[in-house]
């Protein structure tokens, strides 16, 4: 499971960085979204994945021996998702205004105005 998560993080990072290096504002925005999801998964994996663990709620059917999923790591990720969404929407707005101002999605020096 941890190996699979590592592989997935790897793929998300690689494709995210690849897209971000392209010089096309839309690809950059998509690349960032992939990258931020990769990081969120990394945080979840680093906290030891909630494999078979129960949510950390004390109820009457919770057995004393049950392992709890780590809530703090999930709180981190929840915050990071919100921030990632905000940042992604900013990037899309920046991409849109770049397109409006330069009539192109490319970040090339010859597009200088």
């Amino acid at each position, binding site marked *: 499971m941890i190996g699979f998560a590592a592989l997935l993080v790897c793929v998300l990072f690689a494709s995210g960085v690849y897209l971000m290096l392209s010089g096309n504002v839309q690809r950059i925005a998509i690349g*960032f979204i992939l990258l931020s999801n990769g990081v969120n998964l990394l945080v979840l994996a*680093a906290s*030891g994945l909630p494999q078979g663990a129960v949510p950390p709620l004390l109820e009457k059917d919770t057995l004393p021996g049950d392992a709890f999923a780590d809530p703090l790591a999930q709180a981190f990720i929840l915050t990071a998702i919100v921030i990632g969404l905000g*940042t992604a929407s*900013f*990037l899309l707005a920046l991409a849109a205004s770049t397109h409006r101002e330069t009539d192109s999605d490319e*970040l090339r020096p010859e597009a200088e105005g």
Partner: protein
Amino acid sequence: MSNWLVAPVILPLLTAILLMAFGGRKQVQHAIAMISGALLLAVVGLITLRTAGGEILTLPLGSWDPRVGIIWVADRLAAIMLALAAIVSFAMLVYTPASQRDERESRYFYPLHQLLMAGVNGSFMTGDFFNLFVFFEVMLLASFSLLSLGSRPRQLRKAFPYVLVNLVASALFLGGVGAIYGTAGTVNMAELSRRVAADGLPPAFWGAITLVLVVFAIKTALVPVFFWLPDSYPEAPIAISGLFAGLLTKVGVYTLFRTVPLIGGSEPGRLHAILLFLSAATMLIGVLGALGRNGIREILSFHIVSQVGYMIFGLAVFTPLAVAAGIFYIVHHIIVKTALFFAGGIAERVGGSGSLGAVGGMAGTHPWVAVGFFVPAMALAGLPPFSGFWGKFFLIVAGYRAGAWTATTISLVVGILTLASMLKIWTAVFWGKAEGQREPALGHDPGMVGATLGLAGLSVVIGLLAAPLFAYSQQAAAQLLAVSPYVTAVLGEP
């Protein structure tokens, strides 16, 4: 426990919301922002007074155990940084109205500035890495928007590298924080420091903390990860590039000053050796880059990189004297650099362009602007009796005493090259016959000139009061290096 420690963050946040309600009315927005800025100065002044005696203020939000909850901490160094941020931010508000080039540049300017300050102030006070990440993001999102205000095509294109580098840095930071939590079970800096001292952390932790330190180096604009800075800062709206120049990289510097003593142990080790090498390289490459540039704000931006090297040099030498000198240097630099960007910005507004040769002879027509440039320029180059002389003097004494011969000698050479670069701007823009002054009246705007001269005057005051200020820097450094008062204040007695 001091609840009002939230004020430096809450006040700008609430002001930002209030400002949004006055959308198109710039005068009203400006007035509200000024009042809030003055209040912030008062609050921060209070925090500085409270911490001056050596007390460390803490605020565990929601009274959670600090090892899992959020805690805000203000010690002497944090208070110094808060005070500087409030001063520079207030000066920028005075400077702003006449500096804006068009309507598009002023839309949402004031609310975004308040959000930026909330992020900056939060970064200074946070006691754990994850909360630091959150405040970095608050600061970054505001800075991204401010940087692209006006959306000129060239500006947008130059803003992209800044945005991307910082986003990737944030992603690495979050990954690092996640890995720290996974390996150490906490992200609270004080608790981590205690664990490091007890030698109870797995090797993977050091990989994670290295990732975080690399991110701080990117934010600080250390060589070899500085390239995003000199390209993007000159393109921002003028007032904003002044604020960025003074404040934003110094948030990175502050986080290094905060983290390295906590995590790096009490004796200089490999980490400090690496930092020393990087700081020397940063000083040199920054100043050499500046020599090759041909715009006022381009040159000044490269000097930010160079100057950051000096501060990290103080941290890397790691004797109490050197760290105190580093803190003194931060104080001097924030004031001086902002003043330089402000004075350069006035010349840019008068000439309509920031490239050298676009405008000339400002000294004859705008003597006060010339004073506002000359004083901080000489301070930056380190000429007595200005603040920069003392900053460099203390650093160099500390460097030689600690036996860091090469780096200290480099810092001396860099001082001379800095002077050359400042003279280059001076002769091109201020000396000679008046020419290219398209809008000379703008150069007499009381707000812009007043803010510039105010900061320049502050730099002179720092130079004249060097002895008591350095004594205070030494106290702050002693508190920072002792570590245990900080850890005890956050976690209580072990």
